[in-house]
């Protein structure tokens, strides 16, 4: 038994490492994708292109607007004099936010009436719009708060210091600077491993079927399990190696902190890779050609990635989709990756994720092995 598995392993490794191109394909694309993703994937919004239209042109209005220009979130690209220009600029996509202060702004404030700041936001990109709206509100609220305090200090200097106000004492944990690379880089590791392992495994079996060598192997006394082990162990090892490689890029190049233990990450990676091997094998049992395997792989990978919480949180998805995400192994692996990288937590916290991946791996491998027949029909 060991002799046959060893024979399979030697053969697989010879094939994988024979030519330069396939050697490169194993390690090149993950690293390149890691770099592109690391730089391109960010949902942070800064320097929002902004137009201002100040009809009041008073000390007060300029003071309010300066709070926007001083923040890193808004870049004033245009100072307008006609409000019709706003529509034009927004239609062209040149600005996303327009701030408008009407004449009489300063006067309203002085009289103790409510002054009005008009804001127009291009929300065709809902993410930018959401964040812009949030920043506008924060800046305006802070301004109002301070203005009131100053006014109260002038009118009733005795009670002013005693006015109650709740202050949010924000303590962002794990990613104190809210750096988006810290968030995305561990996620990309999960994505890359998923795509690599699933497609390599599926192709490895289907290719043998397509070129006819599978038939030759089937007539030898090799057992189903030996064959499957011989086919999957190489990709298991390659998967582990790729995990190490992209993790190193994440830590050394992007400077994402690694706060947990390598052992915990290794356990998570092993369980996750087992799940992906199961899926890759399953795809190979339903595909006759590499083309079919490619398409089936795509059909698995896309939803697995979008519903894993890779980019946006699962809690915001529709409820029935949230239930589906429990079947997605990547969901758990992302928890493990982010937990180990940023939170520095161990098995005492991650055991539910680990068990879920273990269970999924067991189910998927069992189904695939059961479906894998040593015959042609």
């Amino acid at each position: 038994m060991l002799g046959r598995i060893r024979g399979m392993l030697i053969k697989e490794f010879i094939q994988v490492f024979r030519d330069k191109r396939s050697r490169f394909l194993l390690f090149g694309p993950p690293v390149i994708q890691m770099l592109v993703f690391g730089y391109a994937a960010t949902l942070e919004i800064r320097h929002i292109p902004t137009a201002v239209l100040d009809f009041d042109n008073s000390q007060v209005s300029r003071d309010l607007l300066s709070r926007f220009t001083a923040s890193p979130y808004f870049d004033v690209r245009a100072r307008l004099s006609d409000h019709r220009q706003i529509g034009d600029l927004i239609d062209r996509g040149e600005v996303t936010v327009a701030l408008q202060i009407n004449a009489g702004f300063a006067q309203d404030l002085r009289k103790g009436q409510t002054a009005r700041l008009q804001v127009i936001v291009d929300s065709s990109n809902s993410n930018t719009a959401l964040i812009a709206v949030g920043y506008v509100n924060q800046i305006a609220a802070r301004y109002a708060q301070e203005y009131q305090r100053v006014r109260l200090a002038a009118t009733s200097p005795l009670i002013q210091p005693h006015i109650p106000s709740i202050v949010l004492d924000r303590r962002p944990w794990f990613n104190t600077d809210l750096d988006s690379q810290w968030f995305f880089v561990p996620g990309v590791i999960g994505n890359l491993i998923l795509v690599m392992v699933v497609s390599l495994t599926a192709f490895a079996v289907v290719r043998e079927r397509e070129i006819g060598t599978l038939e030759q192997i089937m007539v030898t006394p090799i057992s189903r399990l030996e064959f499957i082990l011989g086919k999957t162990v190489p990709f298991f090892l390659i998967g582990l190696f790729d995990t190490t490689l992209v993790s190193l890029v994440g830590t050394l190049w992007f400077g994402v902190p690694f706060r947990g233990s390598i052992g915990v990450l290794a356990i998570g990676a092993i369980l996750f890779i087992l799940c992906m091997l199961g899926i890759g094998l399953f795809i190979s049992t339903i595909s006759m050609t590499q083309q079919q395997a490619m398409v089936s792989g795509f059909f698995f990978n896309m939803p697995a990635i979008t519903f894993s919480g890779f980019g946006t949180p699962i809690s915001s998805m529709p409820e029935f989709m949230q239930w589906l995400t429990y079947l997605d192994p990547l969901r758990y692996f992302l928890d493990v990756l982010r937990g180990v990288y940023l939170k520095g937590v161990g098995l005492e916290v991650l055991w539910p994720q680990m068990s879920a991946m273990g269970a999924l791996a067991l189910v998927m491998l069992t189904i695939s092995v059961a479906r894998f027949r040593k015959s042609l029909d």
Partner: protein
Amino acid sequence: MTNHDTAPVIARDLVKRFGDFVAVDRINLEAQRGEVVGFLGPNGAGKSTTIRMLCGLLRPTAGQAIVAGYDVAREPEYVRQRIGYMSQKFSLYNDLRVIENIRFFASLYDVPASVLKERESWVLDMAGLNGRESTLTGTLPSGWKQRLALGCAVLHRPSILFLDEPTSGVDPISRRQFWELIHTMAAEGVTVLVTTHYMDEAEYCNRLVLIFQGRIVASGSPAELKQGAMTGALLLVECEPLGMALDVLQQTPEVADVAVFGNALHVVVPDAKAAIPRLRTALSQQGVTVTKMEPIRPSLEDVFVSLTTAQGALGKG
């Protein structure tokens, strides 16, 4: 439970259906030790399907296959240890070197390390690949590839060998060398089942089984088939113009069959002596000049054509 009295290969009422299509229809067969049995038949007749069922690659819809004394459906792994198989498509790894392919299959067949060296050199000798051990298999000429594939299929010294059109696309000289190898092995007691549609190859077999539309329509040694399978005598007719002669002969009642062979006609009649003068007259009446008309020994091809047309007519009728 290997029993030396039972034949190495036994097929009992083997049936294989793919949906509505009956690919193999109750085939019965026995092959003896050291026998070379050839499966002959047109494409799609069911030869490969039969072989694949005997190797356990396809599960029979009905019937039983017993190979090396074991039921293929029940104990496929025992069977696989004792058989060698070579498919019509070249199925070694093109991206492995010659020696790597040999070692790979040796490990799958559990060839013990103690004899590995000896088997390797035996295969290399047999395939004439000495000195080419580290050539990439994909770059070998197709005749060499076939010999290597055969070598890999017999690394474990199987007592039974299944060859599915092993020489398709191989040049005649390589084919002859290949058949010499097969005969050497048969002489050592290996039972060989081989499918082919080369008529000249069929002559190399001890016994031929003619398969048509999933059934065995005739079987016997090449000589027996040539003698017995054809009812009547075969005439060679050389004449001019050929097309008109064909028309005339097809309308003559006593002609059982007529076919064009090169620039002559092969005509089947019940009795050669009686038919020759009558046919000569009939042809010259229509203005056909006959240069030669004589009885000949039928070739396997004649037998083959005759049997399949007869069966085809039966099938239609």
